[in-house]
């Protein structure tokens, strides 16, 4: 039986920030659970930021979101069967990822199919929670993340999964980019587009499973989709966009963890709020920047 007491907030510290960055950092890293959180958070942010670029490019944001929700049923099912929830999560995300991938990237009505499956699996998840009469906290942790309850063993598993996803992404980089931009053309050039679509969803399933530990099933968008969605507004060069996405995901995770350490509120709240605030700021500043550019251009002409 899994009975990890879930820490959504850092209640065992009543620390106040000294506002001396070095001193505060030393205080943060004084605790093992914070060190583990930073380690796992860093790995997850790198993976999520990188794969997020392709999720945005392929228009698969809903599929990514659905994967995590479908994974929730797997995770709660595993808890009922006294298995590690991560095993159930991975099994369900991988399985559904392969099926979504096989449906293809440009099939009309794909999102409707995904939504129908998604609703059903969430219902399954509810059933499994009710069957498992132990800790509701377990379900809570899956939904909202449990980065503060991560052991050094979990960090090692996350590291291995992180390396697998990054190596997988590098291996399929060019044909994945090609088929994401123009599937028909890539196929004519000999790219196995369906196999690639399945492979990508499998890699995404592993990434989603990792990210669930940090932000949970419901908040997965904040680390996978938001950083990449911001990045593509700044650059149209793929490697630069991936780099910006990774840096943003890292910044949200590190800052979110640090703020939560000195606050009574959950880490997931800070990570998702930082992501959201940044996205809103970028979107709002765009028309202002455009107006300034136009004014500057007008001034030159005049």
């Amino acid at each position: 039986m899994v009975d990890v007491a879930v820490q959504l907030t850092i209640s065992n510290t009543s620390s106040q920030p000294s506002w001396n960055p070095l001193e505060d950092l030393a205080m943060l890293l004084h605790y093992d659970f914070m060190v583990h959180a930073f380690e796992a958070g860093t790995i997850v942010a790198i993976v999520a930021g990188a794969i997020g670029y392709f999720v945005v490019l392929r228009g698969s944001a809903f599929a990514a979101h659905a994967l995590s929700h479908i994974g929730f049923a797997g995770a709660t099912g595993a808890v009922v069967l006294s298995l590690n929830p991560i095993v159930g999560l991975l099994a369900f995300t991988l399985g559904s990822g392969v099926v979504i991938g096989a449906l293809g990237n440009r099939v009309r009505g794909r999102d409707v199919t995904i939504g129908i499956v998604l609703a059903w699996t969430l219902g399954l998840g509810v059933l499994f929670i009710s069957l498992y009469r132990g800790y509701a906290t377990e379900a809570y942790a899956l939904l909202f993340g449990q980065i503060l309850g991560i052991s050094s063993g979990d960090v090692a598993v996350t590291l291995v999964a992180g390396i697998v996803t990054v190596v997988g992404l590098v291996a399929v980089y060019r044909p994945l980019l090609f088929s994401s931009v123009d599937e028909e053309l890539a196929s004519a050039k000999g790219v196995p587009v369906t196999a690639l679509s399945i492979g990508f969803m499998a890699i995404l399933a592993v990434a989603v499973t990792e990210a669930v530990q940090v932000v949970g099933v419901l908040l997965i968008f904040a680390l996978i989709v938001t950083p990449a969605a911001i990045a593509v507004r700044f650059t149209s060069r793929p490697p630069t966009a991936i780099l910006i996405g990774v840096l943003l995901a890292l910044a949200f995770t590190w800052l979110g963890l640090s703020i939560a350490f000195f606050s009574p509120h959950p880490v997931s709240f800070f990570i998702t709020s930082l992501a959201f605030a940044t996205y809103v700021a970028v979107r709002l500043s765009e028309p202002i920047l455009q107006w300034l550019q136009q004014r500057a251009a007008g001034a030159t002409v005049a």
Partner: protein
Amino acid sequence: MKDPAAAVVARDLSAGYGSRVIWSGAGFSIPTGSFTAILGPNGGGKTTLIRMILGQLPATAGRLEVLGQPPHRGNPQIGYIPQGSSFDPDLSLRGLDFVGLGIDGHRWGVRVAGRAQAERAAVAAIDAVGATGYAGRPLGRLSGGEQQRLLLAQALVGNPRLLLMDEPLSHLDVRNQGAIVQLISEVARMRQLTILLIAHDVNPLLRHIDHVLYVAHGKVAMGKPAEIITSESLSAIYSSPVEVLTDSRGRIFVVGLEEEVSHPHG
């Protein structure tokens, strides 16, 4: 059947999906370096022919030879612009990167060796189609004509011998149609490319094409434009009354095969 002067040769070729026959008994030979327009009603099997030349669809009967070989997928000697190619307004990818994918986008991994060489080839192809001014901008933000030029650069970047284009003019206004056809024709002559271009409307192409390949009513027929696009010839080929009309500005309209065959756009 080897014919070094022909880029694409069909002998008694039939196309279909499963038991459904789309057209059959096609026999034609596309001369190397020629510009051929593929015309015919929607659903007649024009794209099917392109897919067969690309090696994406096997023939149900007969033989097809492309550049002296049986068709095979991923042939580097073929440049291609698929049907309906236009980019999502949100697509944040530079034209330069897109054209680069035409060089090695089908290879696994990331581009490690030959980065400078690939960049040079992409820049040269973009220059050849006159798209240098906007190749650094996001594809989604470009106009239809600009996107079409970059699609053409992508098709040219691997130095192909055969260029297949599936309705490259359909989303363009009349002025852009003229400019793109002129460009295609010039580039083809300079590089001695063989061109097969599917079009809805033959009028913007008339001054440039050498041959017309008509795909309609389960048959494929080839001929010189002036010879085949006549009431007598089309009626005889398709054994049904087909009328070719010319308006006061010299534009041709084909009536009888299916209305939209020669609907001029704009």
